């Protein structure tokens, strides 16, 4: 490996997680095109991994695996959107309403290409049984909302929100609690998802009348890079 000592140190610092965010991103960019930088990273990752014996093994509680299995099961139960148009639900007023709200905030429904998530937000409500996963495919500008658990509220509609950094929440539309939704997003905030959180609030039927959350926040979670 013919990398300079400086480059090797940067690769080691990157592997350890010691670089500033900007320097780490610059190194990642470099690795995309520079096999020497990538080889330096692999060299350090593999050598440091030899310290892994020093992490004591610890058996996680049983429920972790069960929850993961439930998660996987929910994933395999997903109805591809392309099949939805054969279903009655597609023409139901609820679906139309959800679509209308989505359109109102500059988002439109689309048939997804190969969905490859870059970000995930796992929303678990502490006050209700609602559990929702939101995935974002930044490259294809796709958002996928997967309701894993919970039932519709008699008091109103669940509305999904995203906030970038300390910014104000932006609506992602009313949740369809019975179906996986995939929507296309042509918005600039996709670039800010590394520092974002999402939330679900309970709103009047049809969604917030003000464009901002008005009801109780049922779940909030950070967006996590995959």
């Amino acid at each position, binding site marked *: *490996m013919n990398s300079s*000592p400086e480059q*090797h*140190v940067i690769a*080691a*610092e990157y592997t*350890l*997680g*010691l*670089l*500033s*965010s900007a320097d*780490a991103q610059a*190194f*990642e960019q470099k*690795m*995309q095109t520079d*096999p020497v930088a*990538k*080889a330096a*990273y*692999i*060299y350090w*990752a*593999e*050598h*440091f*991994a*030899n*310290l*892994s*014996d*020093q*992490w*004591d*093994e*610890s*058996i*996680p*509680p049983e429920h*972790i*695996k069960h*929850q*993961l*299995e439930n*998660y*996987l*099961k929910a994933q*395999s139960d997903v109805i591809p959107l392309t099949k939805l148009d054969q279903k009655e639900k597609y023409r139901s007023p609820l679906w139309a309403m959800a679509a209308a709200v989505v359109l109102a905030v500059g988002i439109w429904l689309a048939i997804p290409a190969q969905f490859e*998530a870059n970000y*995930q937000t*796992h929303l678990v409500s502490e006050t209700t049984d609602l559990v929702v996963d939101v995935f974002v495919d930044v490259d294809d500008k796709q958002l996928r909302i997967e309701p894993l658990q919970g039932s519709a509220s008699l008091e109103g509609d669940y509305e999904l929100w995203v906030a970038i950094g300390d910014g104000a929440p932006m609506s992602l539309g009313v949740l369809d609690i019975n179906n996986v939704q995939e929507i296309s997003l042509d918005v600039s905030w996709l670039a800010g998802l*590394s*520092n974002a959180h999402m939330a679900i609030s309970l709103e009047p039927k049809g969604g917030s009348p003000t464009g901002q959350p008005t009801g109780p926040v049922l779940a909030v979670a*950070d967006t*996590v*890079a*995959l």
Partner: protein
Amino acid sequence: MRELSEIEQMLIDIAKGNQQAFSELYDCTSAKLYGVCLRVLEDEATAQDVLQEAYIKIWHKAAQYQSNGLSPMTWLITIARNSAIDRRRSQASKPTESMEDYELESQQDGPEQCAHSSQTQRQLEDCLNTLEPDRADAVKGAYLEGLSYADLAEQFSVPLNTMRTWLRRSLLKLQGCMGQ
């Protein structure tokens, strides 16, 4: 051709959506990955949450494993360690130094993968032993506990820049000792 390791085969099966393979992978790797999360996060509930997050990433990213150049266990450890470090730093309200998983995205052809032979392991440990003890501890603290330069400076009671200089010199010495 190198023979596929058991874990590698599981990852290939997981990439095809095989939930049984995922279950087997979890059974044989979760104790190690949970150990990583516990050491970095020092809190059981948070470590469990991050462990789940890590396995969800593994499920979604298994298809990309083969192109990233890391050996399978290093890849799994990297996902768990980076997830734990990201959580640790977001909890500390220090949004810098994110460990978003570059290696999960890479499509470059990597060099040949290196397995963790006992020889390379001894090599790293022998080389760490050539460093002054506190400098070796700083390197280990960064890797095993996910400590940042600021954390390390505080722990060793030295200015941040001194710690940076220490560690960078240590890394150069390590590389010189281990060779390429």
